[in-house]
Every structure is written in structure tokens, then in C-alpha cells.
């Protein structure tokens, strides 16, 4: 393996525009808190954001903050503060990092965007489609600030999305309207919701196209790029600026494909990543894969912001469907079939499962899936033990060795 040499990550030029967009998003939130209007709603990352935008809220996503705490490596410092007040080290480390940072009065938003503190919620709106932890996370702040906490309780481990799932969730979302009206001071307008859903639909279509660029050989972007560039799909969906951004990014990626520009120079192996990113180690892992001339070209995680079902004609029902069709909500058989499809389309040579200690819902290696998929697809699989945010659960050397040994295995397989 000594033949591999260090290579630099290639800059995606659109990044500059994305940074401006994110800065504008957070500045707007800070201004709103200063002026008292518009009201700020906290929303889980795959929560009913369209409804909140339609009601005139500015929407803030604590999971984005959790990822920022991870990526800036502040998380591991703050998690113990949350542990100390009764939030277990075994639960979601987005939650514990975020609550710990709040208890310490610190946020990475200060350095990045000049905010003194996180924009406090006027209302907290969750969707349990990801996990139960989001509800408990938001409940902390509801108690802390004495603000309303409402949410949608999604059916989980679904094989096939049924009409009764949709009907139930659509009703749950409609039932939130009176509280949202009261807090926002605005009347619900179905046309505004249709407009927002249409904008989210366009955003998600473009995001899908961005990710599908990874099927090109060589791939013009990496999983690590995608984890950064998904930010507008997470925090700005339902807004026109996300659409403009993805048009820009897509143009650049298509130019890369046309000119055979590889995100990983000399791409030898193409991998699929299942599970959460290890936010505090993105740079190191990206560099290691670059050195090994291996590109992670597809992932379940980044695909989680593809919502094909949005339909302005049926805003509530289509939101219900979009937020229930998600990978994380589904049963193992659906997940395997879904991954298999992407694995085949993207010419994948091997699969990496990240078993994130504090994220059981987004760790798919715990019920025999790697063994089943490896056998069925005839692909080498690797399980990495780590965490999204809590680097106390991560062994740098062991992970590096596992990855290197995995690539050696792929090399051996290819040479046979």
C-alpha cells in the first residue's frame, strides 16, 4: 500500500456561494431574534419544514448545529456537560453535544457567523421519523424556555408505506396548525403551503441530480463533499435560494463529468457508505481515502434529503409520504433493496457500514445486514465502530487500519 501518495482534496467552486447562503441564513435568524419577528421555529432535519415556512416562521435546524459541533470538534468537549445533568452518553450525541454546548453557553455559530447564541425557539416542532431522541432533545428546550413543543409521530420500521400511514400523518400535521397560527400570529394559507412544497420539490430534484453525478466514472464528488453540500437541502429547502444554489453546483459537477475531472485522482475503488458521517473526522477520512485512491461515491445518509413524493396538489399528504418514505423509517428488507439499487447503479466495489455508538437508528450493521448484503451481492463489507459526534467512541488508529486493510482486500480481489 505504500504506492499511494498524498493528494489534495479538490475544491468545489460553488462552496463560496454556499458559505454566503449559510451566513445569510444564520444572520437572518439572529436579526429575527433581535426584532422579535418573524418568529423562529426549531425543526428536526426531516421534519415538516414546509408547513413552518408557509406559516411565516424562520426555521432553525438543531441537527445542523449538532453536526457543526461535531465538525468543529467541539462536541466531545460539551457532551460530558449534558451527561452530568442526566443525559446518558449512550443517547444521541447530537442531543448531548447541543445541550452540553447550551449549558456551557457556547456555540460554533459565534465564530462562524457572529451569533452570540443559538437563535432561541418560539416553538419546537419535531418529527420522530428519525428517532425518539429528537423529541426528548426538543423537550429539554421546551422546559428551558417555556415554549410550545409539538410534533409528528411517524410509524417506524415500515416495509411498505400504506394509505393509513399517510392519512394519520397528514392529520397530525393539520392538527398542528392552530398552535402554529397562535405562535406565528399568521393565518394558515394552503396556497402558501403549496408554493413551499413546490420549492422543496424542485430543491430535492436538484439534490438528487447532484448525488447521481456520483455514478459517473470517475466520480466528480465524494461522500465527504456531499456531507458539506447537503446543507442547503437540509436548512434551506422550501426556499428559492436552495434551488439557485443546486443549479450552480450541478453545473459545476456536470462540467467535471464532461472533462473527466475526478474528485479522487486516479480513482481505483468505489465505495458505498451506510450510516452517519463521523463529523469530527471528515478531513482525516477524506484524506485517507484520497491517498488510497478510493472514492465513496454514494451513501444512505446524503440520500436522506431526497423527497421524491412532494406534490403541491396534495401538500399534506405528499409531505406525509415524503417524510415516511425515508430510508431511516423503513424496515431492513426495504433498506437492503434500496441500497442494492444504488450499489448497482454506482458500480460499487465495497460497502462500509458505520456503526455509530449513539445512533442506533442510523446504524444498520446491528441486525446482520452487512453479512446478508455481502453474501448476496458478493461484495466485501467493512463495519467501522465510531460515532457521529462523540469521539470518545472512536479509535483513530483502529479505523485507519481497518480501512487500509479493506482496500488491500479490494486490491487482492481485483488482482485475482
Amino acid at each position, binding site marked *: *500500500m*505504500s*504506492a499511494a501518495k498524498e493528494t489534495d482534496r479538490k475544491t468545489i467552486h460553488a462552496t463560496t456561494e454556499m458559505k454566503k447562503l449559510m451566513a445569510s441564513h444564520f444572520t437572518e435568524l439572529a436579526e429575527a431574534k433581535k426584532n422579535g419577528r418573524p418568529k423562529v421555529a426549531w425543526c428536526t432535519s426531516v421534519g415538516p419544514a414546509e408547513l413552518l415556512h408557509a406559516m411565516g416562521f424562520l426555521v432553525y435546524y438543531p441537527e445542523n448545529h449538532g453536526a457543526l459541533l461535531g465538525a468543529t470538534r467541539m462536541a466531545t468537549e460539551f457532551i460530558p456537560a449534558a451527561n452530568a445533568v442526566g443525559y446518558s452518553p449512550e443517547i444521541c450525541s447530537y442531543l448531548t453535544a447541543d445541550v452540553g454546548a447550551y449549558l456551557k453557553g457556547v456555540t460554533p455559530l459565534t465564530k462562524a457567523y457572529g451569533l452570540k447564541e443559538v437563535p432561541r425557539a418560539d416553538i419546537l416542532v419535531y418529527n420522530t421519523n428519525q428517532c425518539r431522541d429528537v423529541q426528548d432533545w426538543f423537550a429539554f428546550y421546551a422546559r428551558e424556555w417555556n415554549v410550545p413543543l409539538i410534533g409528528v409521530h411517524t410509524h417506524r420500521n415500515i416495509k411498505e408505506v400504506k394509505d393509513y400511514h399517510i392519512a394519520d400523518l397528514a392529520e397530525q400535521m393539520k392538527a398542528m396548525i392552530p398552535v402554529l397560527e397562535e405562535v406565528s400570529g399568521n393565518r394558515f394559507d394552503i396556497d402558501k403551503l403549496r408554493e413551499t412544497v413546490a420549492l422543496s420539490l424542485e430543491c430535492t430534484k436538484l439534490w438528487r441530480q447532484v448525488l447521481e453525478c456520483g455514478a459517473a466514472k470517475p466520480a466528480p464528488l465524494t461522500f465527504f463533499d456531499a456531507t458539506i453540500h447537503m446543507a442547503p437541502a437540509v436548512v434551506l429547502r422550501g426556499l428559492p435560494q436552495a434551488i439557485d444554489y443546486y443549479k450552480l453546483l450541478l453545473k459545476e459537477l456536470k462540467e467535471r463529468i464532461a472533462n473527466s475531472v475526478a474528485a479522487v485522482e486516479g480513482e481505483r475503488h468505489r465505495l458505498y457508505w451506510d450510516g452517519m458521517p463521523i463529523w469530527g473526522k471528515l478531513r482525516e477520512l477524506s484524506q485517507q481515502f484520497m491517498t488510497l485512491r478510493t472514492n465513496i461515491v454514494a451513501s444512505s445518509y446524503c440520500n436522506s434529503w431526497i423527497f421524491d413524493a412532494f406534490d403541491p396538489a396534495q401538500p399534506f399528504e405528499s409531505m406525509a409520504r415524503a417524510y415516511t418514505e425515508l430510508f431511516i423509517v423503513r424496515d431492513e428488507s426495504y433498506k437492503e433493496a434500496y441500497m442494492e439499487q444504488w450499489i448497482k447503479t454506482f458500480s460499487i466495489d465495497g460497502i462500509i457500514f458505520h456503526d455509530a455508538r449513539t445512533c442506533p437508528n442510523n446504524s444498520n450493521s446491528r441486525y446482520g445486514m452487512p453479512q446478508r448484503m*455481502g453474501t448476496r451481492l458478493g461484495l*466485501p*463489507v467493512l*463495519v467501522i*465502530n465510531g460515532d457521529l459526534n462523540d469521539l470518545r*467512541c*472512536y*479509535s483513530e*488508529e*483502529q479505523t485507519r*487500519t*481497518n480501512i*487500509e*486493510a479493506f482496500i*488491500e*482486500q479490494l486490491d*487482492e*480481489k481485483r488482482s*485475482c
Partner: protein
Amino acid sequence: MSGSGDNRSTLEEALFGGIDVGSCTTKAVIIDGKRNIVAASVGYTGTDFEKAANDVWNTCMSEAHAEPSRIMAIVSTGYGRNSVSFASARFTEISCHARGCLHFFSGPLTVIDIGGQDNKIIKLDHKGQRISFKMNRKCAAGTGAFLEEMALRLRLPLHELDRLARNADGEVTLGSYCTVFSATEVLEKIKAGHPVDRIVKGLFRSVLKRILEMDTLDDTIVITGGVIQHNPFLAEMLRDHTDNPIRVPEHPQVIGALGAALYASKALCEDV
């Protein structure tokens, strides 16, 4: 020492080196062009990987009575593989242990390597190609470090463990996964008056349980690493858990270094 070839060297004179810088010990092996082991040496790694590699390599060269110019290539492996500046290539210990085992046994194999700080299970098919591998999780339960910690708690020299376990007329059951919890459990057993040899056998069983949790054991099982070198009774105890053939190569501690040497010889020797 020389990491590059000498034009005067012929394949018959050629020697190849492998260095395995592990977390506890550093191992070196020199093989000839016919892949026979010419010399092997082992030393403590300590805190300076580069120095450990140099020292162990120099000892190995002395044992080989070889001119440095005969060394055609050196491959490093192990935890400190990147610290061996005179190696011409490096491979992970997973690849090297597999390669080393295939030198003695043909596939399909399940290789169990019990190292100082990690355990590995590597599965090879009938062609010797790797199907899968697993390393223990971050925890050092069931590794050499676990036995070292327990020997310390029991105030026993490490080299006494194998004899005590072998001669025990029974064993105590230790249920904990964690090394720290196991230590507490051991103290409880001592307090309860259990003989020390039965406790040691219980510790050996605990090592095996940790391995059995990692993966299934298929086909012929080969055990490598320093722990099995110094505690061969573990291989006998493994027979309680499987009907599959169990093999321990000669000098199991240096199999990783041997695998590295075999990689080093690959460019010049066919069929390695």
C-alpha cells in the same frame, strides 16, 4: 542495512525482510528466495517505534549472518508500520497475518490473531483470498493487554499463566465483558476463596469468549500472535468450542512479520 537490491545478488542469494511493529512487541523475519525462514527476532516495542524496528531488525540480521546487500526488500506491518523508515512498502497486519498463515496451511482458513491490544479474525477462501476480516472493537477485552492486566492484579508473572491454567482442576466463570469489570470480578473470586489456577483458567475462557463473539469459526482454524505463543493451552481450550481442526504454526508470534517478508519477496519470487 539496505532496503534496495544489489545487482550482484542473485535470486539464490536474495533475502527478504518483514517487520511487524506491534503495540507490545516488534518482530522481524528474514526469508530466503525459496521462502525459508532464515532468522527471526522479537523485542519490546516500547515508546519509540523507529528504534524498536531498528533494534529488532539488527538482531535479526545478526542471527541471519547475512550481508546487508543481500536484502532485496523489506516490508513493514503492524501498529507502527508507518514508523519503519527503511521499509520499502507497508501492509496492514491483517493482510500480513493472512499471508503468513497461507505459508503453512492452505485455505479455506479462519485465522485468529490474538495480539497485544487487538484481536483479529480473518477468513480466507479455498484459493487463499480474503473473504472478510474483523478486528475487536475499541475495547481491549480478550486481548493480550487483558491478560497482562489480570496477571498484574493477581500478582502473577505472565509466563506462569499457561502452566496454572493447564493444571487447574476446574475454572471459575467470569461474566464481564469489560477488562475493568473483570478485574473487579477477579477480586471478588479471590475474596470468595477460589484457587488462583481456576481463576486463571477462567480468564483464558474469557479470552476465548471474546473471540467467539467476534465472528463464526469456519473451516480450519489457525491461531497466531504472541498470546498463543506464550499460552498454548488456549488452543487446547478452544477445542471445547469447536470441532473444526485447530492449527498453531511454529513461532505464531512472528507470523505477521513472516507475511510481511513474503510480501517483500513477491516481486522476485513467483507463487508467493
